[in-house]
């Protein structure tokens, strides 16, 4: 659902007050949302897809009307995904970049954000699975959509002379999630070290307030961290909405979403240490045997299954863990899930993964949740 995310531990959160309005139809209009890029995807209820457009600094909600599983639903398995996409989109395989993958919980179809081309003129495409090995382009010519612009920090300015003039500053939208009535949008600028979390109420309303909230990541010892979160998943602990975020080398940090008001400081706490020398890539949560589990894909250890049991009472880890050791929430490595780069929950018992096992083709496939 998400790819390496960059939140800093000092997260500027843009929150707007206001309650939930019902229904995905509110504020939607029909037409072409005019994407300049699609970098991240996340699903809300009723088949509403949130797609981040970094180049336009916007998040677009699309009412896909894809609210029921296809009649002839077959397990998804696509070998050589990049090659298959090159056929569908009419370009060379080397010109295909899969940006993100998200499963529509209403239809169990996977949606893929794909760039057609690798240069600055790359064209974004939205592709979905049609069961089995089928892929289809989602036409964006006439969809029901609603758009929220990400508040931009001021001080944007062009530099350079004559034809070289441009504004090189860009805030990448690096992760996206939906929780209850808000879209959480994480971003990172390519100049000043400002990583932000915008909490945008959905349905979208115009003129989101740009005031920031700083979240501090729990310190290990003396220093507050501005270290970047790599990937996060929203979960509910008790009745409280939370973010579980993974950092490089690999602490898991719990951040409460309650009480995020402009000007407030929120302190996250480290609830697990999963060992060093790896990069977290994607994280999901799921229910099994009456418990909530986290599944974390990372660069060197395949996939880890983490128990959230005891999360409400978990002591924050504040002391160094020596020798690449582990601490906090218990976890196990999941055997056989090699080369996973993208993860999402397909249904109650199955995950959909995008992976490239060593020496094999990249493939999209469903695997039973461990």
């Amino acid at each position, binding site marked *: 659902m998400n790819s390496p995310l960059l939140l800093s531990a000092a997260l500027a959160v843009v929150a707007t007050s206001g309650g939930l309005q019902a229904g995905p139809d509110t504020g939607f209009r029909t037409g072409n949302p005019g994407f300049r890029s699609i970098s991240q995807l996340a699903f809300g209820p009723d088949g509403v897809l949130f797609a981040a457009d970094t*180049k336009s600094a916007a998040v677009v909600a699309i009412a896909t009307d894809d609210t029921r599983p296809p009649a002839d639903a077959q397990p998804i398995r696509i070998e050589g995904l990049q090659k298959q996409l090159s056929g569908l989109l009419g370009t060379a395989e080397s010109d295909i970049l899969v940006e993100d993958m998200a499963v529509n919980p209403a239809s169990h179809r996977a949606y893929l954000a794909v*760039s057609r081309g690798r240069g600055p003129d790359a064209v974004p495409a939205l592709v979905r699975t049609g069961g089995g090995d089928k892929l289809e382009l989602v036409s964006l010519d006439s969809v029901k959509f609603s758009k929220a612009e990400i508040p931009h920090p001021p*001080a944007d300015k062009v530099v350079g002379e004559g034809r070289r003039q441009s504004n090189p500053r860009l805030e990448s939208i690096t992760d996206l999630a939906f929780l209850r009535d808000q879209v959480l949008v994480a971003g990172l600028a390519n100049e000043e070290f400002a990583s932000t979390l915008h909490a945008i109420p959905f349905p979208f309303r115009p003129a989101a307030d740009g005031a920031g909230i700083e979240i501090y990541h729990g310190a290990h010892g003396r220093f507050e961290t501005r*270290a970047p979160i790599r990937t996060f998943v929203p979960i509910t602990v008790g009745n409280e909405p939370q973010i579980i975020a993974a950092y490089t080398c690999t602490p898991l940090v719990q951040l409460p979403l309650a009480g995020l008001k402009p000007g407030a400081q929120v302190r996250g706490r480290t609830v697990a240490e999963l060992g060093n020398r790896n990069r977290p890539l994607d994280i999901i949560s799921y229910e099994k045997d009456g418990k909530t589990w986290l599944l974390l894909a990372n660069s060197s250890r395949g996939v880890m299954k983490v128990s959230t049991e005891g999360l409400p009472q978990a002591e924050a880890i504040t002391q160094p863990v020596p020798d690449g050791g582990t601490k906090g929430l218990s976890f196990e490595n999941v055997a056989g899930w090699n080369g996973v780069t993208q993860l999402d929950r397909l249904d109650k018992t199955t995950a959909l993964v995008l992976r490239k096992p060593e020496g094999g083709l990249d493939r999209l496939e469903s695997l039973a949740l461990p």
Partner: protein
Amino acid sequence: MLFPRPTFPRWIPAVLAGILAACSALPTAAEDSVYPVTSPAEPGRTNTISVRWKKPRDGRPVAEVTGLDPVRLATLAAQSQQPTDWRRILAVHTGPRGAVRRDLPQLAGDYSVTNGVLRFRMAFPVNHGVEYRAEFHPAEFHGGGDDTVAYDRLYLLPLASDRDRPQTALAEVHPSAAELPENLLKFYLRFSGPMGRGDAYRHIRLLDESGAPVDLPFLELDEELWDTEQTRLTLLLDPGRIKRGVLPNEQSGSALVVGRHYTLVVDAAWTDASGRPLKSGFRRRFRVGPADRQSPDPEQWVLRPPVGGARTPFEVSFGEPLDHALAERLLAVHDVADRPVDGSVSLSDSDRKWTFVPTTPWKSGVYRLKVGAALEDLAGNRMDRLFDVDLAGSAAGSTSGSAKAAPGGAVRTFEVR
């Protein structure tokens, strides 16, 4: 069976006519196939089915099938709205030149029927160097019978402009000082042309003194932090590593160690936006100095005011290298009425010196140098806060930064005589 068999006598495809043209020297090389058919109902009449790519007006070519039995076509159009049905009749595949890939999904696009013509319009513009093949399958159209296909190929040669353009080069790397702080936060890599995205981290390494690569020194983001033109990449050293005491696993530690030398290496195999490798690889060796835990302090900068009546340069010496992109963007000159003064900005002396040349000659009077609050030094320290926050406070002595509250930035005044 895709459609019900027709109730009228089937048209029987006759001989596949010759290929009219195959010309790869032209920008548009097309072969097309004309397809004479005889109707059993009208034996004396020969109809000709033709498949042909039409040149795109908006970059999205259209494949047209003409000469179809209008009654049959209308019947099919009334029966089906599904693209999957039309795809069996008019199949469009892609592949590299001369190697059409029928094992891949058919090309995405829209089918339509107007005035007896079946059309397929590509969802995306044509890609130079990729072959598109539109095939008409008569058996699928007629509901059986001979299935000798008619087809047309569309192939546009790779753009000459791509081939003739000079190879893209890595033009500048910042910071460029011989010594960089242990807590260095980022490099900027600026290229002479747009680069391809998606592969950056495979082509960049940081080597230690023995020539061995440092393990995971950079924050590797799928998004890759490019500017919109993809000529500049921001390469963050993983702050999770360089931060003191951030990680429970402290032995991962900083990627850079004081007193040692490192080499930043970019290999030439990295491809640009048109898929061509870089003109050459890049290596830069640098020494690592002590961590920088001081905020940039504009009060300490040395300003050399220009002379009035001419376009003389206005120079500001920072006394330390600052972040290249931010120093380029966040410093501005305003006149006494607070109007921004137009001019060009350059950085020199390894980003220690900022020079401003106005578009029109200076007038005598007081000017202001405005410094945006987001300005950072090489370690990400700002005027109003250090990158690190020491919970133990200054008593611990390791954060000696003179961070000032400067949420709106800083202002220095200077006088032009």
